[in-house]
């Protein structure tokens, strides 16, 4: 098992966002679906320790998640948030920042290609990208760290069909490479079936 969650609960502002949630997430590609407010985004943030649960336990590769050093864990288990949030500068400077943090060599063109971006995006200022292009730049930035697991929070929710198809094509390609496990949150059951080896439903 990649992740094992047992009776996980988390409160925000006195309300349980997640309550007694148990599930196993295997290697490969897993899509998590559920109604809005089910705690899907929160679940992803727990998996790379952007937040810690108030109750219950999470294991990553058989070891309690809270025994992993959070900064190193986040480079191994990369999260791409729902809305793009790049740093000021060019696409390449964003990739470089991420690669240097992880101590990984950076092959700019190859990384852009894996996220479905043409090589000429490297020099583009991030403020001049469409939301779909920013989202793919976020994906490229995560890939620049050569993570073992990719957590994707509704990666296409803010996009039109054409932009969604380009992201999905990039993800399908990553799936075929089989070097990386993907945990994807989606509100769209069709997309979950297209991209997941297995689909996990949240109540």
């Amino acid at each position, binding site marked *: 098992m990649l992740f094992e969650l047992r009776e996980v609960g988390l409160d925000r502002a006195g309300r349980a966002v997640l309550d007694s949630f148990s599930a196993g997430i295997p290697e490969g590609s897993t899509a998590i679906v559920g109604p809005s407010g089910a705690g899907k985004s929160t679940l992803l943030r727990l998996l790379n320790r952007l937040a810690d649960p108030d109750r219950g336990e999470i294991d990553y590769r058989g070891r309690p998640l809270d025994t992993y050093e959070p900064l190193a*864990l*986040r480079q191994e288990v990369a999260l791409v*948030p729902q*809305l793009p*949030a790049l740093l000021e500068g060019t696409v390449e400077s964003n990739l470089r920042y991420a690669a240097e*943090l992880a101590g990984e060599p950076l092959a700019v063109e190859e990384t852009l290609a894996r996220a479905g971006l043409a090589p000429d995006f490297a020099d583009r200022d991030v403020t001049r990208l469409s939301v779909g292009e920013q989202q793919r730049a976020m994906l490229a930035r995560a890939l620049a760290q050569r993570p073992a697991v990719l957590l994707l929070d509704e990666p296409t929710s803010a996009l039109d069909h054409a932009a969604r198809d380009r992201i999905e094509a990039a993800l399908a390609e990553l799936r075929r490479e089989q070097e990386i496990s993907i945990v994807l949150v989606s509100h769209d059951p069709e997309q979950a079936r297209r991209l997941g080896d297995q689909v996990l439903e949240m109540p």
Partner: protein
Amino acid sequence: MSTSIHVELWQVAASLVLVALAAAISRWQRADLERDIVVATARSIVQLTLVGYAIKLIFDVDSIWLVVALLAVMVLFGAITARHRAAKVPRSFGPLLIALALAGASTLGLVVALGIFDPTPRYLVPVGGMVIGNAMTASAVALNRLGDEMGDARARIEATLALGATAREAAAPTVRRALRSGMIALVDSTKTTGLIFFPGTMVGMLLAGASPTDAVRLQLILLYTLLGSVSISALVATLLAYRHFFTPAAQLREPETASPR
């Protein structure tokens, strides 16, 4: 600089005509500030009179410890006042208190150590008041900006944390902007000093009959001292306060759990 000037009470009373003018304008244009103007005027009379007697006492006793005690009280009240401007920063009082104390102690210590001023109440009380007052404004502005920016930049900061950046790295652009806004007002007013406004100390010395050369030199010293003081206070306040937005595991605290106080 042993000039002296005597101001009669009727002169002060006569200047209240301008306060009446301000209140009249407010009433006429319905700016709704009459009450504030009256309160402000009354407070200025009471507070400055009390401080005047306190300073006279401190000058008469001529004890360095009394000066230190007075400056410590200023630091305390400065931190309490600045805290209200920094309402979005969790637990801002500690960083502000340390920032003001460090800014006051280091700049005053330096000007005394360099032999610019003698360590006597006559210098330390007024200069200390200016140093701490400006440090308070700078750190309050810096933390006010920090609180706003940490809210606005939440998504970007968390996305940077998700790359395995430390809290400090993720907050760096925000901290930089906060520090800048704390320092910029004094940098700008130093640029335009003498052109757009005459600083108070220089005006006071000229009115008191000092030579323009002395007045200008003293004013320059004070401006540079204040530059040092606002940089230190804005820096210390932001560097201590940004940490309060993060947990030890480099997680962004939820705004509702990071209740402002």
